């Protein structure tokens, strides 16, 4: 495994030099603050990388799967394809849970599970390098360790960077990651024992702060015929706002609409959608198979914890805790799972 140490100012410099390098343009995304909010923002040399945060409000899925994307435009009968933007994408500073979510999204948007490879998603994704940042202070609501992740987990990351205060320890976990360190090898210093110790300590502290749930046998438990009243009870206070799905790094449902002007020209647009909205399943006839919120929440839970484990082999939750923290009525998915477990 290739490793290397960079100080925080050196990282700033490295990225500045990478925006255009050897004739290739890269879009680099880094953590930044704007008016007190921490967001994943496109890097420019003036933009200071921000390290003191738990996680971004928004998941990073929008970089590969934008909330609104024009797929093609048309003029009367003639369609004009709008190809996805080219160029390398480097994402630095997302948390390991979110990096892990890309593995799941990859399964959805590549030919594997659906039989259809999505050129828009894959066009961006294939040309990307993911450098995740280990967690120091997990948020209330994080439960990644129950779902195969962890504060220094490498799944989905080409490189994991460990924040050691004034410096970062980079560890490559894929060929892309090895290449990245190789390409910039003169910039990196080799880690010593003190660096390795600092890494271990910071991880342990983070690990201990993370809440846990059990997902043992959950797929089978969800097969049991849960009564309607179970779902009714847990969703009694749900507002149906969809925040839990829009902010979820693994939720990937979308809608496609044609937007036409009077002269017959227009665009075909893909936008995020959510199973928590009644319109999601509304038939043209007016019939809605999921007219009630208990049915919609059942879909959300079943999709993540029963259907995708069967179709893709993965639970579609990385335990990032966004839905836990941001639900306006504190409908906590950890609690729902515990109830299903009979705890």
């Amino acid at each position, binding site marked *: 495994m290739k490793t290397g140490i960079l100080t925080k100012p050196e990282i700033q410099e490295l990225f500045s030099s990478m925006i255009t390098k050897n004739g290739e343009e890269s879009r680099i995304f880094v953590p930044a603050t704007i008016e007190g909010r921490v967001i994943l923002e496109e890097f420019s040399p003036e933009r200071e990388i921000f390290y003191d945060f738990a996680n971004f409000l928004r998941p990073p899925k929008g970089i590969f799967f934008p909330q609104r994307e024009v797929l093609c435009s048309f003029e009367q009968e003639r369609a004009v394809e709008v190809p996805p933007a080219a160029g390398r994408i480097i994402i630095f500073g997302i948390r390991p849970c979110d990096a892990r979510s890309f593995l799941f999204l990859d399964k959805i948007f590549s030919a594997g599970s659906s039989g259809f490879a999505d050129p828009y998603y894959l066009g961006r994704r294939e040309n990307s390098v993911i450098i995740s940042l280990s967690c120091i202070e997990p948020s*209330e609501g994080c439960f990644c360790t129950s779902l195969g992740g962890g504060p220094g987990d490498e799944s989905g990351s080409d490189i994991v960077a460990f924040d050691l205060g004034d410096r970062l320890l980079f560890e490559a976990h894929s060929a892309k990651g090895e290449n990245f360190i190789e390409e910039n090898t003169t910039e990196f210093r080799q880690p010593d024992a003190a660096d390795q110790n600092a890494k271990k300590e910071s991880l342990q502290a983070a690990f201990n702060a993370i809440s846990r749930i059990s997902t043992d046998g959950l797929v089978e438990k969800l097969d049991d015929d849960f009564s309607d009243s179970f779902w009714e009870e847990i969703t009694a*206070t749900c*507002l149906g706002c*969809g*925040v839990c799905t829009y902010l979820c790094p693994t939720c990937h449902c979308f809608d496609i609409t044609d937007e036409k002007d009077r002269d017959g020209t227009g665009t075909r647009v893909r936008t995020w959608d959510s199973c928590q909205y009644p319109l999601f399943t509304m038939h043209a006839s007016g019939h809605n198979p999921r*007219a009630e919120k208990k049915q919609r929440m059942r879909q959300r839970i079943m999709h993540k914890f029963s259907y995708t484990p069967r179709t893709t082999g993965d639970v579609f939750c990385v335990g990032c805790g966004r839905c836990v923290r941001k639900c306006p*009525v504190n409908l*906590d998915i950890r*609690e729902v799972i515990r109830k299903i477990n009979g705890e």
Partner: protein
Amino acid sequence: MIEVQNQMRILASDLIRQKRVDFIIGYEQGTLAHTSRPCIIDVRTSGPEVSEKLVWNSYCSNNLSVYLQKFFAPPVQGRKKDAAPPLRIGLIVKGCDLRSVLNLIREKQVPRENLILIGLPCTGMLDKKKMEINKDELDIEKNIQDSCLECRFSNVKGVDFEITGKTREVPGDLYEVVRLFEARTRKDRLAYFEKEISRCIRCNACRQACPSCYCRECFADQKDMKWLGSGTMSDTMIYHLIRIFHQAGRCAECDACFRACPEEIDLRTFTRKLAKDVEELFGFVTDFNRESIPPLSTFSSGDSDSFITEPEEGG
């Protein structure tokens, strides 16, 4: 507050024992720090001891009246033949919740006779976002929600049961924030509006959390006659302008929309501005008066039309 909580629990268990309610809507302990959350208890199937679940503290900010309308609305897919008689709901209310309830009653969404309103004295609710920033939980006033700072209705009126206690003093300047906003140029105000809503992810949480947004089919969801496109800036702007205007004289300034918004978009400056306009132009306040007619439901030839202006050059 503990005293109020105890009285509330006793009252709730009495109501259950006397079989005067079918449901009680109140607050329970949440799963995160500094969090209470709504709970809806079906008391037909539980004993009076469930009242022990109810809590009352400075985190009870959710507006519970948002759950009322669905108890009385006809079901989405046709009314069943042998529909049960309407349920009786016991509802815990603060001043702002009560004003939302009265709005629902005025607009004939909820029958007053099916409600048992339990009014609690409110000293203001704490704002989790402010608490995170200030990291100073002890200074209560510093962490009070903005809506509570401008509240003049913390003392409930016209409820079925009132638990008395300390409430907030009516502030001197009710519309300070709006006045500051109004003092800016038109261009500046528009820029601020655009800056705020540019973060909107169109999740509609603001609408879903609002007790006055109970429309069976919101204009934003209409497909056959589509008012809104897929989420360009101008679509988002239309969504917000219409949602906010639909709150004229109906908004109880509870800030449920603002709290629900995951992007922490400043929705309150705009709803508040509307409240001020409605008060100044039509003399209407969404107060505790059940009989008053909200401006959007009535018309008089003497109504102000001062808001119809020529577009300003430059601004």
